[in-house]
């Protein structure tokens, strides 16, 4: 119902915009008036909540480093304020018809700068982009998150594994130096001349530009400089070079980072802030308090804090966050030691019972107190992340659209499905057929006894993060209420530390909570990892139908066809409850002193400070709404003109 109303409302809005162009102009004027009425500052004070371990943009496991790197190392292209890709370090680019060969013309005359902001002797050339790939393609450099790029650029997969085999002494007839020297022939990235770089891909990739935006592995490097430093490369601000709008002028580990504007930047006209001061504030309460005291220009506002701010001077300064491509989902263990659960989870009816058992809006309310429905998400790939060439959203492809719009809060249905599952799997006395009583050993997480009878014992494992424990307790309450505590016995185990290696990978769980993120403008990023033998299928389900659809999608002729197959595959996986996505990772609200929609609209990468306008006082909701409405009209125009 809510969705319908929302749809109607947006339709009305759309119509009114079309019918009364004057209203759009009014908005634009109002937005302009707001912007002009403010005075702007030169420094932006913000914070980070967990420390930056290193700045090595190739070999860090911590995606947070991207927040800094996005501003300090430019890529080939970047989005403009409407999200359209425009030149960055590349002046222009070309792509062949099947979108496998991408050629970029690099800006001439740029130099790398160091941490004092001085120009170095190193020029920024096409070779630096080739060297970036050269650096990550060598297993000795320990590049992380390599899979996507390694499989995409032609020849890189073979090159990487050949070097690795030599290092393991599996291949002895080849010399490491010779193989490294043959990089240019083996791997599909070339400097055609000093300022032209060409990437040859394994398969058609219309989404390549979004990958450039999202992946730090596609950034350039000054190879000689990096190799000379070896392991010291980018361990701090003094051991790296910069080519972005800012450089890290000061770095105090676990404490503070200062970004200063690059005096030699190619797009200096669009730099609005001289300095960005980061300080570490791990605690949400502290950041909120410091925002109130005017010490920082931005703070996120958690759901509970939102309530407490009502009726204060800050009530009208709470702004809704815009989007998150990260999806929270429940992961199911199809091959665990808990035979009770294993028997049931391999039954479609039981999975559907789980699927329909949660009131997702209550879970969402933990993060978005006002309009929880806004952050519900039934699909793995996010809405608004992937579009086809006609501008149609990937999640609007049937049958994914139906999944997206299903209301999964149907306790009666959950109970019904459970009864069906029980009829299939249990005898009349409530004994689960083929399951013996015994002890389940999920150590180091837990161990517990099962009796081979109803209720089905379910062992949920989550981290001991405060919010996650609350969520787990809600799962328990919801599932036991809708499916029935007589049918399931939901046990919660909180596990601290890095859970993946101890919990998920060795299958020490029945249900596990995690998140997945759409990394670039193609569903393949996540979906190819979810196949039967995919890296992300840690629950060990067996889905030949899904695998077949993925195969078809990857072999598809056109991008639309590809999306269609992917949509069918994703709908199959979600609709049958092999994974249970339920909400996005979006955190509801924030307060800020900056004007929105003035810096590049980075969908897949991190925020850039280029163009950011910072005021002395917080932006109000009213101003925000005006600016947003005006921006959306302009954006529709810009996208239509594209």
């Amino acid at each position, binding site marked *: 119902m809510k969705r319908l109303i929302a749809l109607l409302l947006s339709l009305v809005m759309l119509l009114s915009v079309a019918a009364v162009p004057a209203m759009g102009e009014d908005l634009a004027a109002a937005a302009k008036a707001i912007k002009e009425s403010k005075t702007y500052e030169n420094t932006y004070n913000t914070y980070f909540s967990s420390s930056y371990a290193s700045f090595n943009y190739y070999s860090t496991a911590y995606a947070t480093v991207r927040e800094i790197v996005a501003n300090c190392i430019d890529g080939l292209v970047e989005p403009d304020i409407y999200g359209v890709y425009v030149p960055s370090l590349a002046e222009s680019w070309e792509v062949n018809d099947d979108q496998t060969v991408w050629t970029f013309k690099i800006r001439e005359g740029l130099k790398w700068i160091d941490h004092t902001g001085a120009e170095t002797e190193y020029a920024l050339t096409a070779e630096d982009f080739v060297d970036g790939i050269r650096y990550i393609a060598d297993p000795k450099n320990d590049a992380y998150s390599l899979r996507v790029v390694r499989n995409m650029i032609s020849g890189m997969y073979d090159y990487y594994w050949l070097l690795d085999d030599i290092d393991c002494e599996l291949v002895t007839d080849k010399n490491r130096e010779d193989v490294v020297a043959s990089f240019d022939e083996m791997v599909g990235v070339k400097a055609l001349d000093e300022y032209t770089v060409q990437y040859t891909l394994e398969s058609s990739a219309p989404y390549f530009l979004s990958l450039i935006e999202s992946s730090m592995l596609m950034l350039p490097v000054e190879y000689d400089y990096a190799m000379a430093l070896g392991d010291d490369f980018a361990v701090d601000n003094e051991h790296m070079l910069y080519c972005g709008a800012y450089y890290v002028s000061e770095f105090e580990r676990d404490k503070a980072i200062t970004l200063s504007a690059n005096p030699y930047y190619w797009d200096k006209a669009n730099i609005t802030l001289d300095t960005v001061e980061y300080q570490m504030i791990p605690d949400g309460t502290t950041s909120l308090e410091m925002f109130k005291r005017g010490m920082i220009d931005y703070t996120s506002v958690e759901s509970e804090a939102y309530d407490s701010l009502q009726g204060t001077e800050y009530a009208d300064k709470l702004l809704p966050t815009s989007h998150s491509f990260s999806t929270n989902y429940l992961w199911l263990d199809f091959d665990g030691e808990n035979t009770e659960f294993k028997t049931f989870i391999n039954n479609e009816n039981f999975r559907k019972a789980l699927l329909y058992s949660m009131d997702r809006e209550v879970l969402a309310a933990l993060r978005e107190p006002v309009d929880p429905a806004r952050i519900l998400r039934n699909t793995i790939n996010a809405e608004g992340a992937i579009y086809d060439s006609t501008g149609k959203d990937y999640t609007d492809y049937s049958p994914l659209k139906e999944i997206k719009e299903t209301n999964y809060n149907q306790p009666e249905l959950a109970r019904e499905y459970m009864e069906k599952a029980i009829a299939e799997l249990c005898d009349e006395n409530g004994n689960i057929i083929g399951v013996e009583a015994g002890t389940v050993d999920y150590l180091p997480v837990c161990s517990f006894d099962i009796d081979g009878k109803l209720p089905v014992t379910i062992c949920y494992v989550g981290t001991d993060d405060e919010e996650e424990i609350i969520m787990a307790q809600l799962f328990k309450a919801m599932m036991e209420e809708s499916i029935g505590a007589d049918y399931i016995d939901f046990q919660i185990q909180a596990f601290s530390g890095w859970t993946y290696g*101890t919990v998920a990978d060795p299958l020490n769980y029945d249900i596990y909570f995690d998140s997945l993120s759409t990394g670039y403008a193609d569903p393949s990023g996540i979906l190819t990892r979810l196949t039967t033998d995919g890296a992300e299928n840690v629950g060990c389900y067996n889905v030949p139908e899904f695998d077949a659809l993925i195969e078809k999608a990857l072999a598809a002729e056109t991008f639309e066809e590809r999306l269609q197959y992917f949509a069918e595959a994703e709908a199959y996986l979600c609709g049958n409850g092999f994974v249970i996505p339920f909400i996005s990772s979006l955190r509801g609200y924030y307060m800020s002193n900056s004007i929105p929609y003035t810096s590049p609209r980075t969908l897949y990468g991190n925020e850039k400070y280029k163009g950011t306008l910072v005021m002395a006082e917080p932006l109000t909701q009213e101003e925000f709404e005006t600016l947003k409405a005006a921006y959306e009209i302009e954006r529709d125009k810009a996208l239509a003109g594209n």
Partner: protein
Amino acid sequence: MGKYILKRTLNSILTVMIVFVAVFMLLRLMPLSGYFPPEMIKETDEATRMTYLRNQGLLDHPIVQLGRFVKNLFQGDLGRSLTVYPKVPISTLLAEKIPVTAAFGLASMILGIVLGLSLGMLMVRFKDRWGDHLGTGYILMVRAIPSLIYLFFIQVWVSLWLNLPMVFDKDIPSSWILPVICLSLGSIAWYALWLRRFMVDEENKDYVKFAMVKGFSKKEVWKRHIFKNAIIPLVIYLPSDLLFIISGSLVIETLYVIPGTGGLLTTAIEKQDNNLVQVIVLMYAVLSVLGVFLGDLLIAAVDPRITLMEDN
């Protein structure tokens, strides 16, 4: 005495070695998957991970790893962090973090001793009167209220009330005040509590009563006998406390965002950064053995009745 010191030194080295080797081997019992953050396990395949482990030398036999570590140690190389600060040299990390924590530790230790002993003496001086009640009230408050609650209270409300910074900033001197006070709250109570206890015990002793009866001034007896005797059991902890100013408080350093060593060990263990863990363990083991040793020497030096030498 010289023989005793030599023996204790050898003993201490033995302790450190046992501790270090035990911890080193224990750490190698951890599962290999622990060397990777979850994001990385998801993003990589088994083979890539093994490549990484091999590059870091983590697949070698623990004895080989131990040998390599010891060899590098003697060349002044502590190795590089694995997961907490990937590839950052551990010596750099310690050089950055120890001075910050030590400065706070020293400041709060001095504050703790000065205020703690003064409070303790005040309590004895005015035993069963206002001074005693004041001190008892303070000690009870610190002990009874969960520290998380009053630390939070101090950070949020006291900082607002006194207009002090909420987080530490090395360029703002006033930002030192609250963390140092918070750090010393516990030790003030500790010193006051035990000084009072020991002084009261001492005051009741017959020799004190005798001295008083003999007509020594109260002040004299206090200074020369009661205080000196009561301080002895406290003195034994001084060297340890002094050495351990370099290990910070996890909670307070997190609250005030002090880039010190407070959370280093916990984080390192949590993220299975074995290179970092072993260095910190080694460091703490050395300091702590040294602390006990010095404590014993000190107590023997200040209290002539105590002899630690072997009876011949």
